[in-house]
């Protein structure tokens, strides 16, 4: 078990060492990176927006229920929705969802290329395949996922507004007052740092699973599942470590 962990960790580091080197032909990498940005960014916008709106709405409703009958002012709901979204829900939930959508897609795409000998064909041409196939995905994710998280956080706050103001739980002024209270800039930094770390984890771990796939369609399916499972575990672990780091 421990040997297995070190074997995969060593192989992952070796792959990343090869992947994160200077590109051979910048315009080819630029083209591939922009393609990935569109795939990851535009392709995930709807699902991220949908999840974000419900996260905000559910958080607002739950806290409204929990604070009912207490001495805590009702406008605190806006504040709670904003901060819980920025600090935790937007980066973590968004990236867990993206691990499922983007991560499995990366593992399947690279794994399929491995099985169809596309990677061998590129290697024989002299292409650094880890570099060409993985680095554009990581760079694209590092640019696009923090933006998706920011959009998700914004939509989530709107979701909280819709769930409370439109249903009469809070007035417009109360919710806005809550959202504008006790703002700490560091929380936004924390959100972006989390988004960057999670983006790196989910793309590199998924790429690793796809790049080293062997066998047939069953193994490709397993690689895709492993990509999601390991990305999710590492995202949650990193989330904990970052929370400790930022709150010490």
């Amino acid at each position, binding site marked *: 078990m421990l040997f297995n962990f070190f074997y995969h960790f060593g192989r992952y580091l070796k792959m990343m060492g090869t992947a994160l080197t200077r590109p051979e032909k910048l315009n*080819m990498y630029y083209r591939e990176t922009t393609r990935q940005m569109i795939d990851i960014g535009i392709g995930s916008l709807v699902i991220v927006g949908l999840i974000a709106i419900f996260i905000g709405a559910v958080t607002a409703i739950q806290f409204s229920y929990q604070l009912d009958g207490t001495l805590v002012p009702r406008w605190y709901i806006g504040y709670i929705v904003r901060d819980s979204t920025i600090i935790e829900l937007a980066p973590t939930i968004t990236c867990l969802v993206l691990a499922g959508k983007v991560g499995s897609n990366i593992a399947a795409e690279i794994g399929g290329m491995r099985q169809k*000998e*596309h990677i*061998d*064909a590129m*290697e*024989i*041409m*002299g292409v*650094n395949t880890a570099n060409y196939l993985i680095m554009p995905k990581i760079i694209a994710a590092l640019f696009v996922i923090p933006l998706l998280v920011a959009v998700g956080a914004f939509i989530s706050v709107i979701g909280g507004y819709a769930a409370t103001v439109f249903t009469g739980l809070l007035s417009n002024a109360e919710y806005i007052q809550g959202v504008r209270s006790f703002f700490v800039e560091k929380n936004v930094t924390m959100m972006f740092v989390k988004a960057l770390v999670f983006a790196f984890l989910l793309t590199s771990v998924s790429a690793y699973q796809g790049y080293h796939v062997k066998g047939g369609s069953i193994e490709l399916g397993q690689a895709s599942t492993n990509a999601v499972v390991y990305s999710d575990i590492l995202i949650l672990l990193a989330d904990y470590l970052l929370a400790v780091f930022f709150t010490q």
Partner: protein
Amino acid sequence: MIRTENIFKAFGDKTVLHGISTSFYKGKTNLIIGRSGTGKTVLLKLLVGLLTPTEGKVYYGDTDFFGLNKKEKRQIRMKVGMLFQSSALFDSMTVEENIRFPLDMFTNHTAKEKNMRVDYCLERVNLSGINSKFPSETSGGMQKRVGIARAIVLDPEFLFCDEPNSGLDPKTSILIDELIRSITQENNITTVINTHDMNSVMEIGENIILLHQGHVAWRGNKDEILETENEILTDFIFASPFLQRLRAAALNK
């Protein structure tokens, strides 16, 4: 020329190749033949560096390939073209993009020069005008020819073909064989073909090695095949009664 020196390859406890020492000559179609599971593909993958030998050396000219560092290996690889059994065309790219990929990656040619080169390669494999088609819109034979066009686009000195005729009808197979032979002779390159297609063996086998259980069991050329007494080779080549009768008839003449 490519030369192997005492190549051993093992996967775990199983040794697939046992001390292969042979040469593949420039300007000739060199064939590796043998039954399934005898190590033909492993040998081919070792030659192109996709696998590393457990023991032994592969020389490109006088250069020990596995003694080179990554950068030096890449320089050799840029002189290598390979046609895969499955063609290995990138299915998200058009035929033109597939062929242009090595040019985009490794040359500083202008777009016009690249287009001209792509058109030339397509013309060379008799597939002019299919630039904008995707691999899935072409037949198996066409995919093989596109694979050849991609393999020769950088003017390689070494061409490797893994089962170029698998899955093709006899007529298309002959076409592919002819194409590979003419490219080899015109460009004076070293071509290594891994096959168990008997038509290929008898048509283009200028330098043949027969692998049997990971050993070189026979070497020679297509003309020597008919007269050989090597049992392993005759068992392999003239496996069917029809071919055995043909051989007997040829020998009686």
